[in-house]
């Protein structure tokens, strides 16, 4: 019996081994985990050009932001990363290089002659460039600004203080039968990013120039007070559990007066095909008060992939940030990180609001970037959520958030 079964068992085992092993690695395929946002779609539409030019295939796995960090960390701590091209949020720009997961792209940039001076300097600062050491090359910026409905605002001017704007949003909700401010109050990244705008626009900050925690200040308390007021009097029902997708849908449906969001959300919303209720009725401005949250994504290459994959990944980064591709991306609604794209006449003719976007980017300030930034978003987000839901006072929540920041920075 065994003798009869042996040959067929061996044959089955060989077939199984061949199937599991898959085809021999004849060519590199780049795999990147990308956030499912318009920018990714823009780059994805241009990928055939890269494959045609280099023969290298690129696969984007698109998921929501909230799941990205954990998936990437698991790959970066494994013996070999499945993702051989990385899209890295600025919030991880302290953690990933500090953990030693990223290749230094400085030598590759120098050898290939990439024009590093063409990038906006603030983007390099945001993504942790240290002289010749470049862990991350900027991809696109996501500075936050105010997107609002011009048809609802009418002739009245936009207030120039945050307090004035919250008053306006509360009035809009009471008088115009719309949500005054579509808010993303879900604990963690959504509410931490949103609150940062309130903080900066109120003249407060997380850290001073020396890196000391200064969050628990009069201006900070004023900012959190305004945030709680906006959440309770101007925001939509369910704002405490809402994320970016929820606010985008609300704005797109024409049910909100304004949202403080990433400026590149404007072209996605000002689109008659997808959002007919609001297309042509939207404008962008710096968050009243003068400063908003600044952010950006960059490209990285993991250390735990082969040299062949690293070379292919660099070829892609060089291509996707080249002037002609950046311009093609900008004409499709890209949020540039290179100065030339903001000044290109063809781009400005197509998207006049790029002039406002430039102001939003210039006015942006950064969330604290350090090894435990992702954890700090959770710490801060929890306190904001407690304050906004009435489970903690403004004073208690801000004191706890400041202590959490100091504790994590001391680790």
């Amino acid at each position: 019996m065994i003798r009869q079964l042996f040959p067929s068992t061996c044959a089955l085992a060989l077939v199984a081994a061949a199937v599991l092993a898959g085809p021999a690695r004849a060519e590199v395929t780049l795999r990147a985990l990308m956030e499912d946002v318009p920018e990714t779609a823009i780059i994805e539409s241009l990928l055939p050009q890269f494959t045609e030019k280099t023969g290298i295939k690129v696969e984007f796995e698109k998921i929501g932001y909230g799941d990205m960090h954990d998936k990437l960390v698991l790959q970066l701590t494994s013996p070999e990363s499945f993702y051989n091209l990385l899209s890295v949020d600025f919030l991880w720009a302290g953690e990933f290089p500090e953990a030693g997961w990223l290749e230094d792209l400085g030598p590759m940039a120098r050898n290939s002659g990439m024009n590093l001076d063409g990038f906006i300097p603030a983007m390099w600062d945001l993504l942790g460039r240290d002289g010749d050491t470049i862990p991350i090359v900027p991809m696109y910026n996501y500075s936050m600004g105010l997107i609002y409905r011009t048809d609802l605002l009418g002739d009245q001017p936009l207030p120039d203080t945050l307090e004035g704007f919250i008053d306006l949003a509360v009035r809009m909700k009471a008088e115009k039968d719309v949500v005054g401010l579509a808010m993303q109050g879900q604990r963690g990244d959504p509410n931490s990013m949103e609150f940062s705008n309130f903080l900066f626009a109120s003249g407060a900050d997380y850290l001073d120039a020396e890196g000391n925690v200064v969050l628990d200040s009069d201006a900070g308390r004023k900012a959190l007070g305004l945030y709680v007021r906006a959440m309770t009097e101007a925001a939509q029902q369910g704002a405490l559990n809402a994320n970016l997708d929820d606010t985008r849908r609300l704005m797109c449906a024409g049910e909100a007066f304004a949202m403080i969001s990433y400026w590149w959300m404007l072209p996605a919303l000002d689109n008659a095909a997808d959002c007919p209720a609001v297309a042509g009725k939207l404008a962008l401005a710096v968050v009243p008060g003068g400063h908003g949250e600044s952010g950006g994504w960059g490209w990285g290459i993991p250390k735990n992939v082969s040299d062949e994959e690293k070379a292919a990944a660099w070829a892609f980064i060089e291509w996707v940030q080249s002037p002609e591709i950046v311009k093609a991306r900008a004409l499709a609604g890209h949020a540039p990180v290179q100065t030339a794209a903001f000044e290109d006449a063809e781009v400005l003719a197509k998207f006049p609001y790029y002039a406002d976007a430039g102001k939003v980017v210039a006015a942006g300030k950064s969330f604290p970037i350090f090894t435990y930034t992702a954890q700090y978003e959770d710490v801060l987000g929890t306190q904001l959520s407690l304050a906004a839901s009435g489970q903690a006072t403004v004073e208690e929540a801000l004191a706890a958030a400041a202590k959490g920041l100091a504790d994590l920075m001391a680790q």
Partner: protein
Amino acid sequence: MSALSRMSRTARTGWAFAAPGLSLLVIVMGFPLVFAVLMSLSSLTLRHFRLAPFKGFENFARVLGDPLFWEATWLTIRYSVVTVTGEFVIGLALALMLQKVARWRGVYFAILTIPMAMSPIAVALIWRMLLQPNLGIVNQTLRGLGFEGVDWFGDPGLALATMAAVDIWQQTSFVVLILAAGLASLPREPYEAAEVDGAGALQQFFYITLPMLRPVAAIVVVIQLINEFRTYDLPYVLTRGGPGNATEVLSYFAYRRAFLGLALNEGAAASWILLILVLALTVVFFRLVERHETSPGA
């Protein structure tokens, strides 16, 4: 004489057949459990990717010293009791109803298995859309009927209850299937005798059905308690533990320690505490059932 040679031929054959399965169990369950113990006693974090130096029970002390851990533990106990009770009561009612159904029984069972066959992540995403406060179909329907929309997940007083309701919706089908199988296996004679004695439907249910169903019910309750204590998918997709800490269950607490705090060692310690808690509950529950079985009045 070795132990192997002392074994009967039947026993040796039995072990031979069981060996592949047992080996697989050791690999897929034993190894992770042992490694989790090592992690919980080590310095392993996502920044310091080495076990050494070992820190004894320091990670356990850090977890146990966090007030949020106790908050999450109490919340997990409340959540588990509510969901398992809901699943059991609804599941038993449905199983009893299905017992009386003669036509289309297979169809009803097929429909009931749909939620059970779905991934919890998919279930959570579907319910997140349905219960979306502004554009979701549930609130739209309520508003259409003249009611106020409900802030299902944004209200700290309601978020946990809503999450429990979603959980009950998915998990009840499993309870129905097991209890229905248990009911089908009950002997007819006690019911016939009770009918001759003039016992009503309620008396038959409380004095015959429930006592005879106790072993099956105990197993269902224990399995569901274990499931509910481990709940992670629903808070992850529906609320991220918020608003505030209103839905932060123990599994999510362990996840936050491990992946947001980069402290795999503390995450492993929290997971082990969770495991010990579940094991203790299981033992206590079985002891209670056993005691009841052997007590004179049972």
